[in-house]
């Protein structure tokens, strides 16, 4: 077995092997890409129309116009031809009646022109054309091939079919040629999310969920209510097609165990990640669980934000900590061996912390203890010499479970008979 000298040797191997590594692509991706690309040729034109406001831009687009001619649309600059005939809406657009998607803030003017009629296209408001990202991309010479970063706004647009799409003008891909199929924006959505399902022909029809009619139109906006498999079918003009959506969910419960004020919270199922919050304050990230000291009494909320397969869920658990501690002090010690008050006793129950120090009147430390069971017997702790009758001061620090730390000074009278 060959050994690596150092990490960079391993990395060089990884780079050379993984760089050209190939894995057969899943079979159904092409149909989704294909339908999306042909379906979107209209929106490319749309974005170009907004670009025509400047005459100089037209020159830049001429190169591309060749491509557009191929899809049966000819564009001219508004400055060169009169009059302007606007065809504001396309028939296709009207088909998307049932549910419309989130329309973008600035609906672009969409004008589709029949091939022969050399009418004019567009006059678009330059201030409206926020889609200028694409414009820069079309500018020849500006694009660095190694730096192919695609603008965000257009990326999203590709995945979600827009209500203002123009009909596919391409002759080669008329409706009849496209096989009717369904295309979901996400086949494995998380519970609670909304996905968009379109049909490759962009035709209107009836949408059904597990056989029940839920909407009409060409696009379905589907809210993933519950986890599991859902059958979505679409009755088009000619036939019925189905698709299956698996709605993912993360579910778990918080399991609590307690040892005094030390709580342990774990999750009933395994998750990739869990962020833990106590009273909305983040305390840890641990997919297995957490241990947490919770000392103050009252109702507290433990929250776990869990992630599995990129789905999120928030679990909460309320715990109620009762303050059940108690303390009793005395103010006398009679170290005479009669079995009563021979030691200085503090009765304390359910506490997290206890500390007692006893001083004489001259403020000399006589005794100290961190346990209520180690009690002052009336002698100086360090030497064992009996303390004389008189007054002593006990300084107590203690914390009862569920309560704050407290301090108390108690005057003690020592009486030897």
């Amino acid at each position, binding site marked *: 077995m060959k050994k690596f000298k*150092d990490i960079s040797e391993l990395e060089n191997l*990884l780079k050379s092997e993984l760089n050209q590594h190939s894995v057969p692509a899943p079979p159904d991706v092409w149909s989704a890409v294909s339908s999306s690309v042909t379906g979107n040729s209209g929106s490319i034109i749309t974005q170009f129309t907004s670009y025509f406001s400047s005459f100089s831009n037209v020159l830049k687009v001429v190169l591309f116009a060749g491509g557009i001619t191929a899809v049966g649309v000819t564009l001219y600059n508004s400055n060169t031809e009169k009059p302007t005939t606007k065809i504001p809406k396309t028939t296709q657009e009207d088909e998307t009646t049932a549910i419309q998607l989130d329309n973008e803030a600035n609906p672009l003017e969409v004008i589709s022109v029949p091939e022969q009629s050399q009418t004019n296209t567009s006059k678009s408001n330059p201030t409206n054309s926020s889609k200028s990202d694409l414009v820069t991309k079309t500018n020849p010479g500006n694009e660095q091939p190694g730096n192919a*970063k695609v603008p965000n706004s257009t990326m999203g647009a590709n995945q979600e079919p827009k209500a203002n799409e123009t009909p596919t003008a391409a002759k080669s891909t008329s409706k009849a040629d496209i096989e009717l199929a369904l295309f979901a924006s996400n086949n494995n959505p998380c519970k609670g999310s909304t996905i968009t399902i379109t049909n490759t022909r962009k035709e209107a029809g009836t949408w059904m969920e597990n056989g029940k009619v839920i909407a009409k139109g060409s696009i379905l906006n589907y809210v993933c209510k519950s986890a599991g498999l859902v059958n979505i079918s679409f009755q088009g003009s000619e036939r019925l097609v189905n698709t299956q959506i698996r709605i993912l969910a993360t579910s778990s419960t918080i399991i609590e165990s307690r040892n005094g004020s030390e709580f342990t919270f774990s999750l009933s199922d395994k998750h990739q990640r869990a962020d833990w919050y106590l009273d909305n304050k983040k305390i840890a990230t641990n997919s297995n669980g957490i241990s947490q000291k919770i000392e103050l009494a009252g109702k507290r909320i433990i929250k776990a934000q869990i992630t599995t397969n990129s789905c999120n869920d928030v679990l909460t658990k309320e715990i109620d900590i009762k303050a059940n501690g108690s303390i009793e002090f005395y103010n006398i010690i009679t170290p005479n061996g009669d079995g009563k008050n021979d030691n200085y006793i503090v009765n304390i129950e359910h506490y997290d912390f206890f500390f007692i120090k006893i001083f004489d009147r001259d403020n000399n430390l006589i005794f100290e203890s961190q346990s209520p069971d180690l009690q002052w017997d009336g002698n100086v702790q360090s030497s064992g010499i009996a303390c004389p009758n008189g007054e002593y001061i006990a300084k107590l620090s203690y914390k009862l479970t569920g309560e704050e730390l407290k301090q108390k000074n108690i005057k003690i009278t020592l009486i030897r008979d």
Partner: protein
Amino acid sequence: MNSSDNKDEISLIEACIKGDNKAQRKLYEKHAPVMYAICLRYMTNEDEAKDALQDGFIKAFTHLHTFRFTGSFQGWLKRIFVNASLELIRKRRQHFDVDEITPTEDQADFIETGTLDVDRMMSLVQKLPQGYRTVFNMYVVDGYSHKEISEELNISESTSKTQLFKARKQMQTWLKGWFE
């Protein structure tokens, strides 16, 4: 790539720009396997990788006319797919939480014997926690600089370096027996 291959590719790209569906399919079939492997390296599971592959191709086809024919077409495509993957990660996770996740012990899988073939390398990379993996992929395999990574992921350069350091350490732990 020799010049006739290159010529073929250029005419294929041109046909795709014109909207030739057959050409698009050909281009897809030619490049999908390598691009899918990229998506698999970046995404957490096959479903997500599939989504990234789909997004990437849609982007590639809608922006094909911006390719200037001056550099490698595959290189141009690769950037698109890395970006598509990052975009999807960002969208699904809201943010890159590069700092918080640390690999747990049970994820450790020491490979002491056998061959370190490409499938094993893939699974090693895929096993890295998301934050490390993104940086490791970008820096080690796809040749991004820390500066580029910091810009793409909106993190600082030093975070990028830290993540890479952690990823390297993790790799070394997993491949303990493979070092001299």
